[in-house]
């Protein structure tokens, strides 16, 4: 058993120490790896590879070094949202993933609305906009982009129809997204009357086969309870919509995430021991309960940092209600963030599960690199 213990320790603690014989002095190490939040916004950073070269310390992050240190820990994973920690990555890359998730991962969304009848109080263009924002339950990877002169086919277009009416004398009717009916055979609206009676009726799409045959599961909308419109007695809506593939950069309706964001891991350090009345004041001041009180016996109490992850850097702990310093000060409580540790959250709108979205986002960044490399050579 003791053998096992020494082995695992070697893997984590000893190795990096042996590599970096010359360690940075503590204050520089803090500057390098932490963002210290005082009264003003922190601006310093050490991205240059040779920043500490004079002290014999290599500040570079080669791909090898990155691969050795990078870690991912999943905290939460549900059908449509996830949170994970990304450790050992620079903000520029974490931000690239976030930007790609929001603006460049493709999804399917309603782009064209063919209005046959709309006698409801909601105007055509407002209704169309509402339809566009409905999340569709369709995997975008199974479809192709459609360009301006392309013919809508089963490979690039999904057709739904909405045909609802409220009978005279009946109560008002609420039209929900679930009323959208998928048309796997394509459009049903005639484009022009056929030249010969035997010809197939031309419609707004030209599907060569049913989408039922090329897709594994039927398409629909992600949520069936989104209100689209309300109809009074005698009113009706009859329309057909065409959904196509697109990206959030063009229109937010194609964004696959409700939002995707990250925050750096907060770190709260008590530089001096805070006791008794001051400790209680500190605990009471924090709106997110970062601190706890530890009983030292003999009636003495001490403040401890119990939940640093909850810290929002609101600085209430070092500031009085009106901004004046009361109780603990900036010298006593230091608020920091770990520079290379990101708590990343993805909320999917439903087209793809969140873990798939992130994988897609990383792949898109790779494709961007590949494109530029091929352009340069």
């Amino acid at each position: 058993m003791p053998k096992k213990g020494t082995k695992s320790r070697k893997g984590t603690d000893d190795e990096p120490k042996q590599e970096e014989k010359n360690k940075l002095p503590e204050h520089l190490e803090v500057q390098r790896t932490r963002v210290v939040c005082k009264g003003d916004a922190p601006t310093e950073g050490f991205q240059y590879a040779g920043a500490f070269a004079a002290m014999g310390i290599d500040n570079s992050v080669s791909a090898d070094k990155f691969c050795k240190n990078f870690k991912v820990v999943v905290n939460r994973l549900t059908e449509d949202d996830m949170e994970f920690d990304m450790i050992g990555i620079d903000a520029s890359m974490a931000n690239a993933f976030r930007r790609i998730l929001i603006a460049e991962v493709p999804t399917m969304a309603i782009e064209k609305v063919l209005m046959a009848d709309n006698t409801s109080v909601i105007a055509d263009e407002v209704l169309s906009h509402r339809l566009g924002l409905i999340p569709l339950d369709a995997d975008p990877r199974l479809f192709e982009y459609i360009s301006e002169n392309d013919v809508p086919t089963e490979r690039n277009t999904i057709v739904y129809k909405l045909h609802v009416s409220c009978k005279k004398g009946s109560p008002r009717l609420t039209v929900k997204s679930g009323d959208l009916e998928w048309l796997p055979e394509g459009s049903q609206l005639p484009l022009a009357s056929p030249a010969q009676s035997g010809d197939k009726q031309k419609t707004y799409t030209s599907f060569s086969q049913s989408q039922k045959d090329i897709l594994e599961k039927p398409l629909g909308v992600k949520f069936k309870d989104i209100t689209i419109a309300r109809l009074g007695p005698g009113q009706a809506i009859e329309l057909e919509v065409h959904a196509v593939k697109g990206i959030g950069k063009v229109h937010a309706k194609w964004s696959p995430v409700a939002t995707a964001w990250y925050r750096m891991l907060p770190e709260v350090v008590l530089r001096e021991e805070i006791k008794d009345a001051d400790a209680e004041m500190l605990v009471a001041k924090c709106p997110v309960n970062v601190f706890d009180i530890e009983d030292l016996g003999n009636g003495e109490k001490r403040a401890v940092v119990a939940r640093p992850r909850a810290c929002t850097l609101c600085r209430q702990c070092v500031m009085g209600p009106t901004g004046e310093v009361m109780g603990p000060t900036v010298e006593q409580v230091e608020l920091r963030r770990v520079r290379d540790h990101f708590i990343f959250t993805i909320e999917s709108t439903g087209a793809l599960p969140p873990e798939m979205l992130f994988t897609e986002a990383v792949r898109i960044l790779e494709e961007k690199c590949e494109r530029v490399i091929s352009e340069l050579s």
Partner: protein
Amino acid sequence: MEHGSVTDSTASTFSIVEEDHTLANSVRFVLNQDPRVAFCGYSIPHPADNKVNIRVQTTGDPAKDVLKDSLQDLMVMCQHVRGTFDTAVTQFRQNNPTGMNIDQNKKK
């Protein structure tokens, strides 16, 4: 597209269309980690133009090669991120067989 001088290949500005901060900032980060780079930075000349200019000045190597190496490095890093992420997700699923609605934050 590369803008540089014919005689000196160590300093160039690369103008890349249809890219923005997403790629440029990441590449700038990787370039700054390269010991061969003396200076590097990027700018978007006008918010309405869909392009970025990446400036690379090196200590002797051709700027184009250094930029290409950086892009290659960034790709390797991305591949590693993807691999690590997939493993972490699989592991999480194994540890939490129900798979759904598990919140480690609430557990603690």
